[in-house]
């Protein structure tokens, strides 16, 4: 009976978070099957370690943190080349940023990008896909999931100032990437 109750509670948690977690992971890794695998991994990890969850924190923050770690780990393993217009996120001076910046157009839109764009819904999705993963996670959590800066900092284990910088740079990159739409 108690076991059945717990199972029902687990299913309710999955029902409540499967869409936002899957959406975040899909937009992070840009591969539907992989996103499903990582989403499963996220829920399995979270539910199997539910005893270690501390109720003083939001469950959503905890599960988003696990999901983001899964995505970042995967992207690091895959050693994805990322494109940044502003250079390294750790660069402090304009010179350092310029030295570490990649040129726009360094990555041409591949046929896969086109398929993804069609599936995901357009230019904004392609532009998000070209952000470096740290920026992508921050901007998605902030403006798609509606999380507060402080919560994102806690989820991603980053200082609050860094989160703000990442989000500003991400918006800057999106603005530049979407500028052609405005000109048309």
């Amino acid at each position, binding site marked *: 009976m108690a*076991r059945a109750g717990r199972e029902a509670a687990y299913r309710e948690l*999955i029902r409540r978070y499967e869409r*936002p977690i*899957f959406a975040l992971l899909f*937009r992070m890794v840009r591969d539907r099957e992989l996103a499903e695998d990582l989403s499963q991994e996220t829920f*399995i990890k979270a539910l199997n370690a539910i005893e270690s969850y501390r109720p003083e924190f939001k469950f959503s923050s905890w599960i988003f943190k696990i999901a983001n770690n899964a995505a970042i780990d995967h992207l690091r393993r895959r050693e994805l080349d990322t494109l940044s217009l502003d250079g390294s996120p750790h660069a402090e001076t304009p010179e350092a940023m310029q030295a570490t910046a990649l040129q726009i157009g360094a990555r041409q839109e591949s046929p896969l990008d086109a398929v993804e764009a069609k599936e995901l*819904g357009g230019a*904004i999705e392609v532009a998000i896909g070209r952000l470096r993963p740290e920026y992508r996670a921050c901007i998605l959590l902030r403006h798609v999931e509606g*999380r507060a800066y402080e919560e994102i900092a806690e989820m991603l284990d980053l200082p609050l100032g860094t989160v703000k910088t990442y989000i500003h740079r991400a*918006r800057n990159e999106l603005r530049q990437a979407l500028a052609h739409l405005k000109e048309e």
Partner: protein
Amino acid sequence: MTPVPGPHLTPDDLDAWLSGALAPAAQAHLAGCPACQERADTEREIVAMLGALPLLSPPPGFADRVMARVRVPEPAAVGTLTLLRRRAFATRRSMAIAASVLVVLLGSMAGSVVWTLGHQDTLAAIGSWLTTQAGQAAWLGVRGVASNVIEQPWFTGLRTLAASPGRLGLALALTMLAYLGGILALRRLLALPTQQVAHASA
């Protein structure tokens, strides 16, 4: 051309503007600076585009696939019983020990039932004595509390108040109001926070 007051908007200012909390000085600058207006409008468009991104769902059966790989723990009592049963049947020696414990437990229970049936008068006498003792102790307690209350300095005032039904009614009404106010305040304090993220509950 009218000079635009103040410096250009910073990224933090743009955040404040997006959330409708831009400082009046920055607001004045924004109103007169076409460059900042264009930047702010673009930021708002991007944020709107991000907010309008479609919700994506995992394939059907996702929850079943997850649940198939999740360990749902047994409740603590069931787990302990399972462990005891497993240990009791592990070896011949453990089985013998378990059987002995069972015999002792069942034997003592049967013995107590037999003794009770054979000594009903003794049990009734013990019960009656215990009831008397408990009654006396309760009465002593009530008397102790009453004499303690009577000796309090505020008791005379309370007695005067009780002598006037009007004042007593007013005091009771005020007490009830204070109590209800406290309950309402507690409810507000203990209210669950509202769901901030539409997607999370979708």
